[in-house]
């Protein structure tokens, strides 16, 4: 193995955090993409703006808000700990939450574009064949918007690997628990003589990103073939 213990720890932690982050945000992102595309209701514009907020806020602000809400004394954080024993602060689950919030708008956007292209005539056809609302969504809408779901998941995964500000603000920089690749790189730069370690971490990040791009292209092709395009 050419990676040091610290490096492989940061790498596997990054992958673990990004995976959790995507798993956490995928269901609500699909729901919100559908609601924002297909439903017309009062407050839709506000909901839309709220979803997009992390895109325009400084990540540190997002981290700070998370600290207020999900911190040990925050209203949601204290409830989660008492009711389920879930601790977010200083943990990788907390890191996953921070990255999920940051990448959420990217995910929803990709899904919406794809959903807007789904031919509603096909949903009507399913309807005349006896498919109810949930049935139609699961068997027609979701498969047809799959390219967008996939694109959203991959974008969000990549963004989660690179998230820095919100993570370090919310869950700090703890080796083995919240020190993902970008945080490790930052720490290396803060350490005297850490230039070499920083360069290695940068190379790992580049390789990871490149593999991700190739993998997403391969996935996209398979899905397109599945949909007959």
């Amino acid at each position, binding site marked *: 193995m050419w990676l040091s213990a610290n490096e492989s720890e940061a790498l596997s932690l990054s992958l673990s955090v990004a995976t959790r982050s995507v798993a956490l945000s995928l269901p609500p992102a699909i729901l919100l993409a559908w609601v924002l595309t297909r439903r017309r209701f009062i407050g839709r514009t506000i909901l839309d703006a709220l979803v997009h907020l992390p895109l325009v806020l400084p990540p540190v602000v997002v981290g700070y808000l998370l600290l207020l809400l999900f911190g040990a004394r925050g209203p949601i954080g204290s409830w989660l700990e008492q009711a389920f024993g879930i601790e977010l602060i200083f943990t990788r689950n907390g890191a996953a939450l921070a990255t999920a919030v940051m990448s959420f708008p990217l995910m929803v956007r990709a899904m919406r574009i794809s959903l807007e292209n789904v*031919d509603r005539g*096909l949903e009507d*056809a399913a*309807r005349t*064949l006896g498919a*109810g609302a949930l049935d139609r969504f699961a068997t027609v809408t979701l498969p*047809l918007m799959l390219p967008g779901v996939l694109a959203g998941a991959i974008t969000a995964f990549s963004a989660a690997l690179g998230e820095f500000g919100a993570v370090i603000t919310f869950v700090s920089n703890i080796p083995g628990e919240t020190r993902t690749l970008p945080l490790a790189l930052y720490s290396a730069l803060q350490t005297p003589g850490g230039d070499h370690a920083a360069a290695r971490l940068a190379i790992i990040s580049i390789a990871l990103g490149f593999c991700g791009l190739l993998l997403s292209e391969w996935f996209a092709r398979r899905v397109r073939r599945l949909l*007959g*395009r």
Partner: protein
Amino acid sequence: MLAVEAKKHLGAFTLDAKFELPTPGVVALFGRSGCGKSTLVNVIAGLLAADSGRVALDDVLLFDTAMHIDVPPERRRIGYVFQEARLFPHLDVAGNLRYAERRAGSPKFVSFDLVVELLDLEPLMNRRTHQLSGGERQRVAIGRALLSQPRLLLLDEPLASLDASRREEVLPYLEILRDQLAIPMVYVSHNFDEVLRLATFLVLMESGKTTAQGGIGEMSLNSGVRAIIGAEAVGAIVVGTVLGTDPSSGLTRVGVGRGELKVQAQTAAVGAKLRVQLLARDLIVATRAPQHLSVRNILTGVVTAVTSDEGDADLIAIDIGSTIIMARVTCAATRELKLAAGLPVWALVKAVSLRAHSFEEAPPAAARPTAPR
């Protein structure tokens, strides 16, 4: 019985429709493009809610604004064949058919195998939908709609996007469905040839309104229908019974009204019903018994009406024995022959210019789907 009554405002367009179809039967919604045929079909399917009206199929009320009934499309059990087929691109042909089969209501009146056989779908089963030709797509769409075990089948210009030869690949299958499954159908079209071959009943639509309706024979004489199909294609459609085959000529003898026609027909089973179109422009009118002519078909009748038609011509309606036919003659001929209501005439038409289509007038009721409880 399918009874439909619907009013709907859509911007500047107003739908105001009312018709009844005796079931089983095929009703053609006929009219120019944009006259609201598809809107009406969507109301029947439940995909579009009418502002007011009612839709009743046999004894089941599907929609009634007065009684606040609006059965959602997924529970109406109405099959819908769309103009663009709308096959699911993420499923293959078999997958599309099974999709409908899995969600079908009961009782079932067609089996999967029967649909595959009637529509000849076996060779297509494992194909992806984008690998199908236009005609094949429509056959699959029809099969998929049938497998949902519908009580009524709506077909919205299923052949409009196909060229003439592809159309011929699908039409015979629709005739088979009509004759063998006895499922009530609403067939939307602006092509009178399709209507002629498939429909038993015709509802004429003009700018959102149903303006006339009746049996196909009666409606073939309607002035509104004539205006749409054009002077060249105008002609009476008469139903006759096969009397036998003329051994010397090989032509089929068909009893029509009081008289008899010799036509070229595919089927010649004695007693079979044939629908014959007598184009008005092909008919010759004589006021004395004609002799020494090559014409095979001479019908005697009485003029019932003379109406002026476009291009310096008149349409002469002739009763040939509880059946009306029409001849298109020049105004000069009308004057010279003094054609007027009440005048006995002879109508002549060449056997080669007649087109006959077989059809079952009253299909067996055994296979009919029944209303669910």
